[in-house]
């Protein structure tokens, strides 16, 4: 037998489900999701933190899961593209991406959507320029950027309308 490869405990809550296992520390959160949990909605593009296809939420914040060791975020709440539907309905951001034709091949789309959901939480939504700047961590090789910004603007407008409705 070879030298035992080191492991370390990993405890997470992924899309509401508890996960616990001993993992090699070199396993990234992205590889845990895709290779061990079959959550393949989160994509591996560059695997170097440059493309944003692997974007997920950790404790509500958007991060690149290819640059996070799975063992290094004990008890974190991870949300992936599989975890954002609302009672089986598409998340409004998903629907807006469809309506605005915000993708062609679709490979960057899960990352774009997770990033866009966080963008709205952060409130970086005051202008088209601000949206573009704060979405710059997500690349789209098909060049669907105009549709992506349009989809995001649509959800912002929807939210504004909803909050006005509540206030009335």
């Amino acid at each position, binding site marked *: 037998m070879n030298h035992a490869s080191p492991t370390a405990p990993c405890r997470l809550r992924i899309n509401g489900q508890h996960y616990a296992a001993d993992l090699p520390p*070199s396993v990234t959160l992205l590889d845990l999701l895709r290779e061990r949990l079959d959550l393949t909605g989160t994509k591996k593009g560059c695997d170097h933190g*440059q493309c944003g296809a692997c974007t997920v939420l950790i404790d509500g914040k958007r991060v690149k899961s290819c640059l996070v060791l799975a063992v290094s975020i004990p008890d974190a709440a991870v949300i992936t593209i599989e975890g954002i539907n609302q009672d089986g309905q598409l998340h409004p951001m998903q629907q807006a991406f469809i309506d605005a034709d915000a993708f062609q091949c679709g490979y960057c789309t899960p990352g774009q959507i997770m990033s866009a959901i966080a963008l709205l939480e952060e409130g970086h939504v005051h202008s088209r320029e601000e949206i573009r*700047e704060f979405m*710059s961590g997500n690349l789209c090789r098909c060049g669907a950027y105009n549709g992506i910004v349009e989809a995001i603007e649509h959800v912002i407008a929807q939210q504004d309308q909803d909050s006005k409705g509540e206030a009335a």
Partner: protein
Amino acid sequence: MRNFSYSRPGTFDEACRVTEHTRFLAGGTNLIDLMKSDVERPAHVTDLKSLSMNQIEELPDGGLRLGALATNADTSAHPLVIRHFPVLASAILAGASPQIRNVATNGGNLNQRTRCHYFYDPDMVCNKRSPGTGCSARGGRNRIMAVLGTSEACIATFPSDMCVALAALNATVNLHGPKGERSVALRDYHRLPGEAPWIDNVLQPGEIVTSIDLPSVSFGEHYTYLKIRDRLSFAFSIVSVAVGLEMESGLIRRGYLALGGVGTKPWCVPEAEALMKDKPPSHSLFRDVAERILEGAVVDRDNAAKLKLAPRVIERALWQAAEGTPQSQTCKTIR
């Protein structure tokens, strides 16, 4: 990525016990990438995130202490940073992407490695990665490489934006190591490559950056962080400038200036800053300041354009600061 053993100590004394094959992990946005590229091959990774170093708090003299584990995003959005050190918030927002800034830490920013293409490619010789093998960047594709502080052995830039603002602000780095605590001026923290470019900074084995102190300054709106790069966002700088001016009655009482993208470390020249003392802003003054801070620059095969670009960026940044119209990091139009 090669596997490694992993620990997450709860005390500094435990964390400081290292071998030469240990690497410290904070946000990991650079270290994990380097491990994937096989540039870093640690046998053990010591995760620092259980140490209590994520606070941002005021110092008695009106300055600010930034915890080493506070994220770049939290630091740039902190009310005290925005109110008292907007040039720092601006520099942080000019770097990386929102997802990276949510994870990357202040301490990690100081200790990131160069993004020289040759350093990142284990098939190429590189003195910084493999001491004594040679420098592929000299005479190579070196459009992005440094023109200041270079040596025969290395012309790689230090890539940080945040550290350019920290250098301008005369920040101090607080360290905890096996021999106790000490502080180092940020301007002295990073090393020139000289004959040993594999040593990036003055950290001793087992030493950890615990926090960064910012002394009180009074720039008001007289500051800017102006960054020129190959695309408008999420790219390392070709030339960047951090400026703060303490102004009174139309005169610059004291000028703070640092450059990124052109040096092997955040580039400051106190004599260039001193030229501004008690002078009114003027084209000739700012031209002299730019000339002085760029003195001694050496170009290689592809990077001569930096020497044309840099004085223009410096002068424009000084005018932005003098006029109190800092560069927006959202609207990229340069005024």
